[in-house]
């Protein structure tokens, strides 16, 4: 290595995204490392400062709750991108298509179908109904094309052998796509030279792809050019920047609950020229706040009467209500079985080994080795409430044990995955930091996976928690095209959508 960045770099026995166990760089990183070696540590530090100033001036921020009056923070992007080969990606992509297809089949079966998976004993009814995300109000609400989860974010990790595994499904309002696109924009500005010898697949068509998918799930009453809106809880929401991003990239209105009104089971928005009918709502508000008539009566974020409008089929709500049941961490354990049941296929992307604690045998064995496992609450997102056995104090473990015994359905235990690491710029050199990957999957009449996704980095040394709300950072994620020609063809059509071989979703 020419650069001093990697002088003392040590993989410390972890699976490293860039270096083999022998210390030699992996082949698909060699061009990048060479380019990087032309930069001094000071020059990279200067560009990092530029990056921070750019993000702040552009207002690419998220809000941290709990700190005084909700500070706007930037989501730090490491200047060293993560690279995924075309071959690896086609495996991931096939796995994601399969998984999201199964999850959509399950939701459709559950809420508007015959509940065949339950009748056939694939998953117990009580597990479904005891899930926080399960929603009786969703029964019978139609979803065109069966795309109840139109936007999914699936969290992947790589274990000690480099195997990609699904860690979590996010089927409600997964956020992060705005950072995927903005990170790419920032990288092309900060380190344009790095793209020179590498055929990186584009990601900036997301808005177009999303709008296309939303248009295709419009109700039959809509015109050929349906009115789509993005519904946000408002400017104080931590992901407000993303809501703005989505509306802007689709060229549609960003509305709040108070901008919408339901009359005779039809949704309108209040415009300067009167009421305008709305056909599709991409909502970024949780189920519980969507409609005070049906859910929390104290919520002022939602729209009274929205659920009844959705039930009448005059408007499509995306993602559908009740999806939380399928990303419940206990239901997660059943996804491999559901895959075999609905598709008669083996899961392409394996789960992390998961233990269900209402089973007395599994509970006993978990309680015996609590200090070696990861314990998660089933319904939380954002990395909250997790206990990582080996890192926990005796006190934490005792509390965790008591919590589990008090409510076994509320917790799962998982084997500790030694997450892969990626060199990350720390001061003037590179150090290994744990990473995960959240690709985004769009479902309408086809399934489209946006190349790459959000690579999140646990910036704290040794930490396994990558969530932005807990001090995580991110990396631009490069999926390589098989060849330059493939890339040029993709850029020319402006989209990776509807390639031959994309999985069909049955309605």
């Amino acid at each position, binding site marked *: 290595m020419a650069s001093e960045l990697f002088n003392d770099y040590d993989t410390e026995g972890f699976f490293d995204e860039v270096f083999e166990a022998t210390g030699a760089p992996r082949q698909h990183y060699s061009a990048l490392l060479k380019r990087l070696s032309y930069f001094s540590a000071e020059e990279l530090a200067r560009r990092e400062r530029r990056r921070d100033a750019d993000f702040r001036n552009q207002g690419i921020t998220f809000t941290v709750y709990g700190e005084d009056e909700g500070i706007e923070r930037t989501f730090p992007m490491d200047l060293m991108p993560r690279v995924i080969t075309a071959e690896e990606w086609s495996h991931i992509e096939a796995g994601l298509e399969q998984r999201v297809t199964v999850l959509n089949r399950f939701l459709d079966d559950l809420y508007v179908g015959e509940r065949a998976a339950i009748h056939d004993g694939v998953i117990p009814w009580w597990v479904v109904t005891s899930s926080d995300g399960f929603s009786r109000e969703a029964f019978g609400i139609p979803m065109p094309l069966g795309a109840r989860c139109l936007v999914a974010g699936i969290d992947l990790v790589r274990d000690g052998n480099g195997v990609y595994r699904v860690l979590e499904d996010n089927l409600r309002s997964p956020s992060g796509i705005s950072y995927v696109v903005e990170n790419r924009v920032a990288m092309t500005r900060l380190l344009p030279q790095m793209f020179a010898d590498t055929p990186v697949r584009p990601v900036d068509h997301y808005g177009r792809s999303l709008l296309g998918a939303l248009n295709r799930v419009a109700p039959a009453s809509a015109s050929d050019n349906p009115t789509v809106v993005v519904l946000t809880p408002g400017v104080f929401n931590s992901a407000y920047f993303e809501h*703005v991003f989505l509306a802007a990239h689709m060229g549609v*209105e960003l509305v709040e609950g108070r901008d919408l009104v339901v009359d005779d089971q039809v949704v309108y928005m209040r415009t300067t020229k009167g009421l305008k009918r709305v056909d599709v709502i991409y909502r970024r508000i949780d189920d519980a706040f969507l409609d005070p008539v049906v859910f929390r009566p104290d919520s002022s974020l939602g729209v009274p009467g929205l659920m009844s409008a959705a039930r009448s089929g005059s408007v499509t709500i995306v993602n559908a209500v009740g999806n939380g049941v399928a990303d419940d961490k206990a239901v997660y354990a059943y996804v491999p079985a559901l895959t075999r049941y609905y598709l008669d296929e083996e899961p392409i992307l394996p789960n992390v080994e998961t233990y269900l604690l209402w089973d007395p045998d599994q509970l006993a064995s978990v309680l015996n080795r609590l200090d070696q496992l990861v314990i998660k609450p089933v319904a939380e997102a954002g990395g909250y409430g997790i206990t990582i056995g080996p890192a926990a104090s005796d006190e934490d473990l005792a509390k965790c044990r008591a919590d589990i015994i008090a409510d076994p359905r509320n917790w799962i235990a998982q084997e500790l995955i030694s997450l892969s690491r990626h060199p990350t710029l720390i001061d003037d050199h590179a150090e290994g930091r744990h990473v995960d990957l959240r690709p985004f999957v769009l479902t309408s009449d086809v399934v489209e996976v946006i190349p790459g996704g959000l690579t999140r980095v646990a910036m704290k040394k040794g930490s396994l928690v990558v969530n932005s709300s807990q001090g995580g950072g991110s990396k631009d994620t490069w999926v390589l095209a098989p060849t330059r020609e493939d890339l040029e063809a993709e850029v020319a059509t402006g989209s990776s959508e509807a390639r031959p071989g994309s999985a069909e979703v049955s309605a």
Partner: protein
Amino acid sequence: MLARDAENLFWAGRYLERAEDTARLLDVTYHGLLEANAAEQRAAWSSALEAVGLRDAFEKSGRSLTAANVSEFLVRDGENPGSIVSAVEAARENVRTVRESLSTECWEAINSFCLSMRSRNLEIEIEQQPHELYGFIRRQCQTVAGVASETLARDDGWRFLRLGWNLERAEWTCRLLRVRQVHLEAPGFHEWVGTLRSASALEAYRRTSRGSMDPADVIEFLLLSDSFPRSVFFAIRSAETSLRELGTGDEPSQPLRLVGRLRAELEFADPRELLTGDFEGELTRIERSIRGVCSAVGVQYFINIHDVDLHMLQVFPGAGVE
């Protein structure tokens, strides 16, 4: 467009104009007083507070009438909703909720303006380099105006932004004139130069007046000029254009009716008649008319959906629906 977005853009325009006007007024007042005695100073700061319509609020805050206190109050007092800092924060907050309908450049200009106001040491700057500070604020406001003008589509969003901008400007220039016209009896060259400077009008005025500093000429220029963009007439005419373009049917909207009447009144006003009559009363009336236009805009465009509309929908399907 979404009624809430329209309202936010309207207010963003008003706040930005307010920040710029206040900065210019402070600059002129401060530098016009360096050789003045204490009594003159107090009178000038008092009239500056009146020109921004905040004299009562200042007195309530219990501060004494000094340059430092007034500057502090008008620049960095977060408790004072009329301070520059409050106006810039409010402009950013309004724009932040309509970001998706603006250009990236326009949002960035406002955002980085606001962020740099937060990071500057305003307390020190007010004391040690006020001219640089006010110049910075003025330039930032003008940058936003320029970026908006060069990057925004001429759609309804643009019209509401400009409408807020121009109505605020018209009201501000009018109030400035009303506060300064007490000098009419005892014309002071420097006061009138200061007044013109406060409206960025000195050079433009000189070119039309060829050196005269007759108060009647100054007043006519700031109130009625049809070529200077900060005159009351010019701003009202621009507001009328925005409202005309925002209209839909054949019927003029209520705010358009009001602004059209006001424009006609100014367009055909006789300056001599104005000055010999109850000029202060006349200016007060114009200010009230401008506020009337603002309220009518609110009723017409921002809160235009009443329960009665929903009822109408059931009786006459299609009514009120675009």
